[in-house]
């Protein structure tokens, strides 16, 4: 089924799903998960990827749908009461709850239309009355509040703020986006091999400056081995691994 060329804007993944269910005229309690997942994925493929935050929410739902789809292929799980569990159950409940609030929003809108026909009046309080300001009893207002209590409150707010930051990432001081492609790393290893016909795995890892470099280096070595560009050998378990260029 084709997706309309001009993309409708949806508020979120649930909104989009409800639209698809509606459009396909299927029962919300019996969602044809394969078809709906297919349409859902087609839709998000067309989505503009400008707003990563929004996109990620749609992607999470895509993952959920695919997960349900795969579970539907397996024999149904049985719960404590011996009933078969429908993998769609949780999603259906979420959709129904969301749909209910959407419906209530509609009802509220109706209330609003009626209420808007009512007019109020500006206060016309005589000036001398308006100018009168009731004194504020500071003792009553402050009550048993003390400076140290106020400070405790402040500390807990600041602590919450610190909690919000990712302590692991913020430890690096500056967050630099690092992109290392596998291709680049493979080229690097091939060049390395030109200078050293044989080198140790440990040696090349020591030259890597970050965790991500180490990981990609490891992947690059596996890839080069698979394509037959290098061979590796190890004398015994935990001994250093030797890497050699393949001489064809």
């Amino acid at each position, binding site marked *: 089924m084709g997706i309309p060329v001009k993309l409708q804007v949806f*508020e*979120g*993944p*649930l*909104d989009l799903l409800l639209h698809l269910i509606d459009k396909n*005229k*299927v*029962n*919300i*309690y*019996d969602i044809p998960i394969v078809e709906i997942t297919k349409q859902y994925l087609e839709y998000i493929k067309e989505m503009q990827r400008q707003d990563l*935050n*929004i996109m990620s*929410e749609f992607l999470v*739902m895509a993952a959920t749908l695919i997960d349900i789809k795969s579970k539907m292929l397996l024999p149904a799980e049985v719960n404590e009461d011996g009933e078969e569990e429908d993998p769609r159950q949780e999603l259906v409940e*979420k959709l*129904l*709850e*969301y*749909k*209910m*609030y*959407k*419906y*209530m*929003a*509609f*009802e*509220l*809108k109706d*209330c*609003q239309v*009626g*209420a*808007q*026909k*009512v*007019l*109020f*009046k*500006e*206060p*016309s*309080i*005589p000036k001398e009355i308006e100018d009168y300001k009731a004194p504020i009893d500071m003792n009553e207002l402050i009550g048993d509040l003390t400076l140290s209590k106020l400070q405790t409150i402040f500390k*807990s707010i600041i602590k*919450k703020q610190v*909690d919000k930051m990712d302590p692991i990432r913020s430890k690096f001081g500056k967050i630099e986006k690092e992109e290392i492609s596998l291709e680049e790393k493979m080229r690097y290893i091939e060049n390395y091999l030109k200078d050293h016909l044989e080198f140790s795995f440990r040696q090349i890892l020591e030259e890597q400056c970050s965790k991500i470099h180490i990981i990609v280096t490891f992947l690059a070595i596996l890839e080069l081995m698979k394509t037959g560009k290098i061979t590796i050998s190890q004398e015994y378990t935990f001994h250093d691994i030797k890497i050699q260029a393949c001489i064809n």
Partner: protein
Amino acid sequence: MEIKKLEAVIEAILFTMGESVELERLAYAIEQDKETTKKLVYNLIQKYESDNRGLKIIELDGAFQMCTKSDYYEYLIRIAKEPKRHVLTDVLLETLSIIAYKQPITKMEIEKIRGVSSDHAVNKLIEYNLVVELGRLDAPGRPLLFGTTEEFLRSFGVHSLEDLPTLNSEQLEEFKVQAEEEIQLKLDV
């Protein structure tokens, strides 16, 4: 003071204040207890209702406010200025309905129901004075709790939260029936 006069005082106060006045304040002004004051106000509301008046008194969560009857809006608007109103988009209405029915509610709970982050919507509703923070939840992270305001009641013509259109599981049942009917329709075609 006789009842007639007390009612007249209440009428004068509500007219002058323009805004909503809490029952306590009315009681204090007329030097009566809250019970008596409440009876007097309800009586007055009744009179306004039956007397073919152009005005009415509405109750907003234990406070009272005088306003015009909606029947005469068409005439009023010919010379009265149309009050400024915020246009609520579907997103805002949806978020507002979740807050109205589930208050006090955290932002995270709202987001769980909507499936999308709702920062912007919640902040807009706060800006429009329809939603207000109520305090913090006593749970890890102490998240903020949100609820609706008196302005919300006024804008939607309900006098208390209990007065909101009912939200019940029957509604869900109806969805179910609708869905089944749709299926049936499809099968019949």
